[in-house]
């Protein structure tokens, strides 16, 4: 397991928010490496449906994850406006395919509310909490749970 990138203090921290379908999500800005326009990915065989495949990010092989699909929603059909956010999750870099990036939020941790019980287990495991700003509901993604554990192939 990786360390939480976010320190739970009352300090302000910044989050990048983005849209997945009609919902808004965000991640800590410190985990974001870059945001890129969509480019077709090379399909990976024998991989879960939310894995879009891999792309070349300046010489590194970067897996692209369909965030909507990962959260149990319908697969995103990429358009010209679709982007992927390159984030560092543990020691791996992944690209999260999202519909659009909205803005940068500056919040303190007391604004983060626990995820309501209503949500299904899938969603709850990926969401750190919910932030309410200007009447919007933005869910913060917990990055270290997004990628499957490296399967125990070596073991």
């Amino acid at each position, binding site marked *: 397991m990786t360390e939480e990138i976010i320190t739970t203090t009352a300090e302000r921290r910044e989050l990048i928010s983005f849209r997945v379908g009609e919902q808004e999500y965000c991640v800590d800005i410190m985990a974001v490496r870059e945001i890129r326009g969509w480019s077709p990915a090379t399909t990976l065989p024998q991989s879960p449906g939310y894995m879009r495949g891999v792309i*070349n990010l300046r*010489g*590194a092989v970067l897996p692209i994850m369909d965030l909507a699909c990962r959260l149990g929603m319908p697969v995103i059909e990429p358009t010209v406006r679709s982007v992927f956010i390159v984030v560092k999750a543990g020691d*791996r870099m992944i690209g999260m395919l999202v519909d659009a990036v909205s803005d940068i939020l500056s919040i303190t941790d007391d604004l983060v509310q626990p995820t309501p019980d209503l949500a299904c287990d899938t969603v709850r495991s990926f969401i750190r909490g919910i932030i309410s700003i200007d009447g919007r509901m933005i869910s913060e993604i917990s990055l270290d749970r997004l990628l499957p554990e490296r399967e125990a192939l070596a073991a």
Partner: protein
Amino acid sequence: MDELEAIKVTFFQECEELLADLEGGLLAMQDGNDDGDTVNAVFRAVHSIKGGAGAFGLEPLVRFAHVFETLLDAVRSNEVPATPDLVVTLLRASDVLADHVSSARGLGVVDEAVSAAMAAELKACTDPNAAPAPVAAAPVVEAFEAAPVAAPADALIGADDALDDDDLGFDFQPMTITIDEQAADVAAAVGNVWTVSIRPKSDLYRKANETALLLRELARLGPIEATLDASAIPPLDQLDAEAAYATWTVRLETEEDETAIREVFEFVDGDCDLEITRGEGLAPDAALAALLAGDAPAPAVVEAAPEPVVLAEAPVVVETAPVAAAPVVETAPAPVAAPAPAPAPVAAAPAAAAKTQQIDVPGPGQSVIRVDPERIDRLIDLVGELVINQAMLAQRVGEYGIAPSSNLAMGLDELEQLTREIQDSVMAIRAQPVKSVFQRMPRLVREVASMTGKQARLVMDGENTEVDKTVIERLSDPITHMLRNAIDHGLESPEERKAAGKNPEGVVRLAALHRSGRIVIEVSDDGKGINRERVHSIAIKKGLISPELQLTDEEIDNLIFLPGFSTADKISDVSGRGVGMDVVKRSVQALGGRISITSRPGQGSTFTLSLPLTLAVLDGMVVDVAGETLVVPLAAIVESLRPKPEEVRPLGPVGSVLAVRDSFVPLIDVGLTLGYREASPPPTEGVVLLVEGEDGSRAALVADAIHGQRQVVIKSLEQNYQQVDGVAAATILGDGRVALILDVDAVISLRRREPPRPVEPTLIAAE
């Protein structure tokens, strides 16, 4: 503590080199080159190991090295003749010494019985010829703590003072040598002034020690003023080139006590007469005393008591003082002027050292940079990206239809060339000579030969052939196996060889060379060659081939690579443990290599192993499968063909096979196996790649189209994701897209399982 550990690591690294030197020297002696040079180099190697080991208190190692050293010393002074038998004994002793080093390093355990037996054998070799010297060899061996054998005065080496090339000015007249700028500070309190008189015996030089280093060490304690008394040097015609004549008197100002001063000399204990006096001392030579100011309290003569070598600094002195040690001791630049009645005649031993070591030790002029391998790896990654980027750029420009004669196109061509050159140069940085692997082999050959009762001599060639670090690490196993095989199966017993009119000692040759961008390792023997009739009948008996099959000689030879094949009549200790040449072949293929054998009855066999120079790039066939681009490693591909309808035969409900000449090979649709498509198109519409897995099983992979051959840079999928079944790695093509490199073996074995079903998104349960 960390520092000590670091020094220890360096010591063991040096031990590796010294052991290699030792073995190399002994092998040279075995080849009849047993002049003083080689013997001295051998002696020095053991001596240095002993010295270093003493510093770290590695008792068992020191003890064994001492016995070994004693015998070598006797050999060196011709007290014990270096007969071929003795050299064999010495070689075995060097193996035991290597074991001791490994054990001291915490890698393995020394067989105490073997070590004790070896030590006894060494002693037995030394004893009967014990030196007529004041200190006999035998007692020394037993009482290890005593000083090493005192040699007869006319022994060897002993270039007196090759003290030039240094900040120590040197002349043959008594004179004052100032090492430290503050040396002239005569005002220092008498309590802090010491007078050290050093009179080296010829033994000191024989052991490759050096007075300059001692003075240097003294200078570390405080300002020194050294005076050389050369009055004992006889006229040139009476001069014994190997005797020691000079005496130094050193005035030392230091806060340290006598123990600290004595520590400087601990490593040369017994090899020089040492007098340490508090205050301004009287030099033994009255004439010298005049040179020194101050009072002259009665010199308290302290005899250097023989003690075990336990000083930490000593080995470091010899090995690391770069200015003094390297040029003087190791590479011996012409020591001082010849005309003078010098105590520095051209030193036999240092010159010898230079001769034997010139290949290994970079001269003072060459400099070596030590670089963290990770930095080089990073550089290689970056250059890999550069290559990809350059290819992308070229492709994009090509899409615009630029004329090949335009400046832009020509500039791109130049860029491509430069990129290639950079890539080659960077790969060359990581390249290493195969020597590191080869040098472990002589021992293996000796051991295998003695285990199998054969006589074998190893001849090595091309040790300096360079190959990428990634490959070198994986050469050792196949070479070991091939050598074992050559001795165990290839060579005949000495009796058989004599009967066949051959030299009873068989020759096994290990060679490395570059050939068309690959490294080729050849292991050949001059044994009986492959008994084709027997191989053929065994293969039939074991059901590996059908009896009707007509095979060429070459095909029969290659049967030995089949899994489950072993020709040894009796299962020997060495080979035939169920791992045969098939294992070698598999591991070689896993590296993208090939292995083959040629054999001539009665004259021997040659195994040829060919490997890529690096594991960072790979030659692959680019193919299209269900709209995806895949790379199939070229090493796995036997041939590619377009199947005719009559060659494709259905087998069972879904499967089909391809008739290739006389055999049937299962057809595997890559797209279906990897889950790219649900149903396979007829194989006749595609291209078939006939591949061979690591276990020798063949399969016909169906692809949609072939784009051609390309060298690709291997990229890891695991770094950011995880391993994927059927995929070995990824690469980036000229258009910037990622292409997957097919894992041929995995595809073959995936096919054997049930067809893949669509994978449901797996969800990780919340805690």
